[in-house]
């Protein structure tokens, strides 16, 4: 993902360009350094509410969106989020009015801007997913799940066994009849500070993780062309991560998931609004992509257990990821 200066001469603007997919989003009202600071760099905080004078921001997928394919007429819906009011038109551009009283110097990409990006990407059949992705000898894995379900632990385990990591938290995914590809959205890895990640990262001092200033997390900026952190991967399996119902179990639990259970998780950990009848064009594109993606992948429910950290050689998940030779 790259951020370039925009082409609009009358107002500040920038372009968010995918390195992997044919998708460029133009944001009018936001400069390239401002978006880079939120998406890639961290540490160079600036107050979100300073954009109030440039509101509404306009977010638009460039190129031919071919909305006539699904025959839907444009429908506008509005959503009030903590950091902005969003107006989405199915198959069209989106508008964002920044909230004057919202100051979030510590946050990453504001939720309102993220929703606008996700809607525009959806028009190109791209799904923005809350998930980690890495590559092992068994192929590429996409692990989706909410907060506290084990994405950081799984990412750290992947790093500790030498698996290239695409992302720990957010990816853009697209399925074609031939493959499911994911691209990282952020150029940093930010792991939850837990006993598991601390223990594993202590064995990897050369990676260069530093403590986050404001959050209970550790942070690693990823350099371009670092083979340990590829910007994309082909995915052959999807894990849906869950917390254990009671106390954490000793062994990681794995069970096959049906297509509709996996689809429900993909909707839950993307932007559910884009799968509603109010957004017919985005929904049609996303359903097409998800259907292809479910055909091609192995699907498992994963409840991480203590053995993932304590006894990796015996852990069923690691044996699945790195089959013994």
């Amino acid at each position, binding site marked *: 993902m790259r951020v370039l200066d925009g082409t609009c001469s009358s107002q500040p603007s920038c372009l968010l360009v995918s390195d992997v997919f044919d998708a460029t989003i133009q944001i009018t009202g936001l400069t390239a350094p401002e978006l880079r600071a939120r998406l890639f760099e961290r540490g160079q905080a600036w107050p979100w509410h300073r954009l109030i004078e440039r509101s509404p921001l306009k977010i638009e997928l460039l190129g031919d969106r071919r909305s006539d394919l699904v025959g839907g007429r444009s429908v506008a819906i509005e959503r009030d989020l903590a950091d902005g009011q969003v107006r989405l038109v199915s198959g069209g551009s989106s508008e964002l009015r920044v909230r004057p009283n919202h100051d979030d110097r510590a946050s990453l990409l504001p939720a309102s801007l993220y929703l606008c990006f996700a809607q525009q990407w959806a028009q190109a059949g791209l799904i923005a997913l809350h998930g980690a992705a890495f590559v092992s000898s068994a192929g590429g894995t996409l692990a989706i799940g909410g907060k506290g379900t084990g994405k950081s632990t799984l990412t750290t385990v992947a790093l500790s066994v030498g698996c290239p990591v695409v992302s720990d938290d957010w990816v853009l995914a697209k399925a074609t009849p031939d493959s499911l590809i994911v691209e990282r959205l952020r150029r940093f890895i930010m792991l939850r500070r837990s006993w598991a990640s601390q223990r594993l990262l202590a064995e990897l001092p050369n990676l260069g993780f530093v403590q986050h200033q404001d959050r209970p997390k550790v942070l690693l900026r990823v350099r371009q062309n670092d083979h340990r952190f590829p910007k994309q991967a082909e995915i052959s399996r999807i894990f849906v991560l869950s917390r254990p119902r009671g106390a954490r179990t000793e062994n990681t639990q794995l069970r096959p998931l*049906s*297509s*509709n*259970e996996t*689809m*429900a998780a993909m*909707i*839950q950990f993307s932007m*559910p*609004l884009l*799968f*509603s*009848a*109010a957004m017919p064009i985005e*929904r049609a594109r996303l*359903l097409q992509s998800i*259907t292809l993606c*479910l*055909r091609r992948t192995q699907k498992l429910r994963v409840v991480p257990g203590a053995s993932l950290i304590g006894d990796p050689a015996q852990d069923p998940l690691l044996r699945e990821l790195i089959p013994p030779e």
Partner: protein
Amino acid sequence: MDRRIDLIAKALAKKRLTINPLDDGSGVVLDVEGEKLLTMNATGMTIIQAIEDGAHSVGAIARVVTSVFEVDDAAADQDVHAFVENVSGQLK
């Protein structure tokens, strides 16, 4: 029971519920207002699709079910009752 079917039909008409089908016949129904996702097997998807298409009584929906699946009338009635009870209960 018919009032519960009407409740589901209205939620579909008002776009509170959206049917998201998969090519294996199963699917997921999104409840935007309730912020819920209801996973459905092929029978559930057939029933909710029948309601969206205008079948608003247990008998009418059960006839759609028996036309798609090899089940007898009593089993189809039972499936429709259980489905309507479950989904309408989640809309409250």
